[in-house]
């Protein structure tokens, strides 16, 4: 068949199934489009992988914390058994250290030696004695963190082969550290302090507990305020409000509100909640209120979309058997819209969890070394804690910042996973 075209010389003598140039051009365009798509996805995924990978690699040293184990003797006279908190534990620790390094006697050297151990050692010892007063007058082993430089030395972050002027530890400190290793006093267990400690000036003691509690309270407030208010507003606007210029204006404003930069909400919170209502500075309750302002538009928009998606036939069915408007919405429309509403809410809350700017303005980036007892106490939140740590000069905070980012990302992924699960679980078909 194909040679007929050639021999007869007549143009367009072609069987219907033979592709012409135009068709192959069309197919080529298809293929190109597919390649562009795949390339875009590969690019996006590699960017994501780079981001997460870098953070994870930076965070890796923070997974463990270098600890030192010492034999400590608490002499009878050093601690008053009726008031064990008042003892001079730093002195007791110093003498324990001196027993290992008896040759260090010059005050300057002693100070250098003490720099190897965390400032938190005395509190670890104090807490142990307070919980077990029978230890007074005895010798026992205690583990506590090495200081930041000791920690970095152990993890190899500080390169001991560098010339002295370029590294933060002295040759003596390296030698002392090596002696501790040789005596098998150094260990590196999992760093639970990163989660369960509150913030500290010392990286080896700093943890996220205060930020986690603060974020929890703030999100709780945010949910308690924005969920009922958002749903009520959306139900009213979608189901009851007359369609007129006023409701149109409200709708436009809500949609615009969702696009307002978050720092503006922070300024609003500062002006209204702190300055006008005189609420406590840095407190999760204010943070939660500010975040709920931000979350409200998201929830309202998601709820309205979910309500719109409920088929009108269900409303007609309910009205047809004599349900009132309220019953129609309450018994049928709202339950059917609930999965969509919850998904929108969780996504709004996840967004609020990661929001930093408004919290900075209401002072939730304060340095606070204890978790808040209530939502009225000063506190930080996860993103502001990351901000504080990222700003700190100590080497140990570099890895801890990344670790905190991983914790935050972990929470976000969990919340989004819950949202997806709920959408799938409660998805209905009509």
């Amino acid at each position, binding site marked *: 068949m194909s040679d007929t075209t050639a021999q007869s010389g007549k143009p367009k003598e072609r069987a219907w199934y033979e592709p012409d140039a135009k068709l192959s051009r069309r197919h080529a365009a298809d293929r190109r489009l597919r390649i562009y798509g795949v390339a875009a996805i590969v690019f996006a995924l590699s960017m994501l992988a780079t981001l997460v990978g870098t953070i994870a690699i930076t965070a890796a040293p923070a997974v463990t914390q270098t600890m030192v184990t010492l034999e400590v003797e608490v002499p009878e006279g050093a601690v008053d058994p009726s008031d064990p908190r008042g003892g001079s534990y730093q002195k007791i620790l110093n003498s324990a250290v001196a027993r290992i390094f008896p040759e260090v006697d010059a005050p300057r050297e002693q100070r250098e030696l003490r720099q190897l151990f965390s400032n938190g050692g005395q509190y670890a010892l104090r807490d142990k004695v307070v919980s077990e007063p029978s230890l007074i007058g005895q010798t026992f082993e205690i583990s506590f963190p090495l200081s930041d430089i000791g920690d970095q030395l152990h993890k190899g972050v500080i390169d001991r082969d560098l010339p002295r002027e370029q590294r933060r530890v002295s040759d003596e400190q390296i030698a002392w550290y090596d002696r501790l290793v040789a005596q098998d006093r150094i260990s590196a267990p999992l760093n639970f302090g990163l989660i369960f400690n509150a913030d500290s000036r010392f990286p080896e003691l700093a943890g996220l507990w205060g930020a986690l509690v603060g974020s929890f309270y703030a999100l709780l407030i945010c949910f308690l305020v924005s969920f009922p208010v958002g749903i009520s507003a959306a139900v009213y606007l979608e189901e009851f409000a007359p369609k007129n210029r006023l409701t149109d204006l409200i709708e436009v404003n809500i949609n615009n509100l969702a696009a307002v930069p978050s720092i503006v909400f922070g300024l609003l919170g500062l002006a209204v909640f702190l300055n006008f209502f005189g609420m406590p500075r840095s407190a999760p309750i204010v943070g939660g209120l500010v975040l709920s302002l931000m979350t409200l538009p998201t929830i309202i928009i998601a709820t309205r979309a979910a309500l719109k998606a409920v088929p009108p*036939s269900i409303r007609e069915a309910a009205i047809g058997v004599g349900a009132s408007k309220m019953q129609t919405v309450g018994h049928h429309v709202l339950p059917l819209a609930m999965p969509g509403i919850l998904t929108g809410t969780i996504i709004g809350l996840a967004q609020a969890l990661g929001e930093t700017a408004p919290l900075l303005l209401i002072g939730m980036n304060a340095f606070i070394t204890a978790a808040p007892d209530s939502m009225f106490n000063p506190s930080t939140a996860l993103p502001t804690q990351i901000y504080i740590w990222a700003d700190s000069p100590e080497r140990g905070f570099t890895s801890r910042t990344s670790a905190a980012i991983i914790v935050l990302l972990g929470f976000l992924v969990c919340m989004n996973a819950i949202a997806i699960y709920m959408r799938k679980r409660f998805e*209905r078909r009509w």
Partner: protein
Amino acid sequence: MTTLDTTEPSGMIMTKTADNTGTLAKAATAARAGEHETKISAAGVSVFYGEKQALFDVTIDIPARQVMAFIGPSGCGKSTFLRCINRMNDTIDICSVKGRIEIDGADIYDPKIDPVLLRARVGMVFQKPNPFPKSIYDNIAYGPRIHGVAKAGSAMDEIVETSLQRAGLWNEVKDRLHEPGTGLSGGQQQRLCIARAIAVNPDVILMDEPCSALDPIATAKVEELIDELRTRYTIVIVTHSMQQAARVSQKAAFFHLGNLIEVDETDRMFTNPTDQRTQDYITGRFG
């Protein structure tokens, strides 16, 4: 027939048709031994969607315990009129209704009438089966529950059983009352919707093309059911199928472009229509 007199001076064709209806209805009443008094009486009903008038001055009497079919081409206003009878149009903001519709002599657009109570007396079955995404039992029990007809328990069980039996669905679903109503077949779903409408004990059942989404077998079952239901209920059915109107209805009303053209005994309308447009529609020349 007294309400008709008030609209006597309105449209010319209208008045004539209405007069015909009146006499015919009287004849029918006589023929069936006084069984079919007027249930619903509409006079001068006009419906507007915003500026646009969808229904022009409709006057009609619908007899009790009979099936009245509304026929006509698409967009002729028959569904609009049907939805006036249980004030379903109230839910559309831009819709306004003029004129008078009476059920058992009471004006249903009287401000004293609560549409919620009206809709309990005038049930409705929609074009697409629309069971609630709940169990079969809850679908039926919902209406009685919100109207306080029965509390949960044996009284409610009885209502559910009776309603399903009247809708001819009991034997098919009695073993799976607590399975979702949306899991039934299309025809079963539609009968479930009929049972749901019956459960609140209405006088009138409005059906808006109840079989248009069903296959022929399911349609036959629903039609059979309609025929049984007419011993208890006044039924108004909108249908696109002339055959269906002929099969299920005793009286028929032909709508065209928002006007009620002709009301007559179904048999007579299909064999010997008065109006040319009715004849054209029935013989398939338009619509």
